[in-house]
């Protein structure tokens, strides 16, 4: 990632974190909840080059670890999002067409955020965290997937637009 892109990326993910903590978390969704932050991150990272995706994953993870209501060790989301960003930007991206269609981005955002939540739980369980009953976990992950799919017309265009804004002239 070019160093002059870093402040913009940092600002975008900090703002998104604020929106998630202050607004989205207050909404009573009918089924489970919705993590705009995760869905937006996945839609962002799939567009990114491998190196900058990994750095973005690390930064986004560190920001998410700041969440005061989080009961997991600091750094767990950093580990998950850094891993996810590498897998998405190298393996998944290579398997997809050069031009990303909105449907592909929707699928990536939904599946990857569900996978990230599952990975977070797995790492948490390994580190001795209480993870809850299977029905609770299933409801949380599937609920998040449902809302990520339904609200994709809102955040996917935003992720595409903001991603383009952060690119340098040479990268465009």
């Amino acid at each position, binding site marked *: 990632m070019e160093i002059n892109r870093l402040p913009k990326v940092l600002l975008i993910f900090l703002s998104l974190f604020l929106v*998630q903590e202050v607004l989205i978390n*207050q909404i009573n969704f009918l089924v489970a909840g919705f993590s705009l932050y995760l869905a937006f991150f996945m839609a962002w990272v799939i567009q990114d080059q491998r190196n900058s995706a990994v750095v973005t994953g*690390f930064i986004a993870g560190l920001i998410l670890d700041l969440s005061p209501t*989080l*009961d997991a060790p*600091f750094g767990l989301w*950093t580990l998950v999002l850094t891993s996810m960003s590498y897998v998405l930007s190298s393996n998944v991206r290579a398997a997809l067409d050069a031009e990303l269609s909105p449907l592909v981005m929707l699928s990536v955002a939904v599946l990857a955020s569900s996978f990230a939540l599952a990975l977070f739980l797995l790492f948490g369980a390994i580190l001795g965290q*209480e993870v*809850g009953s299977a*029905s609770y976990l299933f409801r949380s992950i599937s609920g998040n997937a449902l809302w990520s799919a339904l609200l994709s017309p809102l955040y996917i265009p935003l992720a595409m637009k903001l991603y383009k804004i952060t690119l340098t002239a040479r990268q465009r």
Partner: protein
Amino acid sequence: MATRGSNRSRLLWVSLLVTSLFIITLDLRGVSLLSSLRSGTQSVLAPVERLATRVFSPVGDFFSEVGNLGRSSEKIDKLEEENQELKSQVIFNENTLAQLESLKGVLDLAGKARYKTVSARVISKGGTGTFSETIVLDIGSDSGVRRDMTVIAASGLVGVVKSTTASSSIVLLMNDPSFRIGVRVAGKQDMGILLGQGDKNYSLQMLSATSAISVGDVLLARGSSGDKPFVPGVPVGRVSYVENTVGQLTKEGRVNGFVDLNSLSVVSVVLSAVAGDPGDALVPQAPRPAPTVTVFVTPSPTPKE
């Protein structure tokens, strides 16, 4: 064949992974810098959350109320504007009334048990990515709230204070998977442990092999030493199912909590239990069945013609 570029990005990835593992290790070893980062974030977020609650709660309900938009007539627009104002006023009043009701209920409960409490508004909740059931209150250590204090609502236990800043506190709700509380059956001395499951149902494990529980039994908090984290006597829930498995050492069951944790707006933090254990004084009254009128009909013999 791996190119130089892909090797470099793999190296970057591995070094960032190692860094995150290093951060996790530091946190697990109790480095205070990392935990203070989270409490720092809470201090920054609390005023914004408070403002957002004030603005967002009436507006969020207001949008669901307005159905017909897009009519172009000037008069209709004006009337709609007035209507919207009135509706938002009504919703605001309804919110305030609902909060007053909750506050009255929780003060009644605290008054009966002679708990010294401080009331608070819920300003935020834990998100999906946290997998922990938490709420954020608009009061903190400045109001006397400390870690491990009991939090109650009008109908019973809500949870326990997990952390505080000067002006906000985070409460671990009783349905969190890591939540455990010692309970006793009202009217008896049988004791058990209630475990959060992440939803409305709780799991109950009795401690003694001779304990008898039945559906409908009310469970109360047993209380902890020094009243932290739990003051005694707070209603927790009602037994909804008892498992009868052969060979089981102790009885197990499922419990429905008294408090709807999804619609909390006002709660109270118990600062101290002045009068000690209130016993069964806080057991909620069972709903009184509505009287039914029974009519007995005796057929009279048909008159002979």
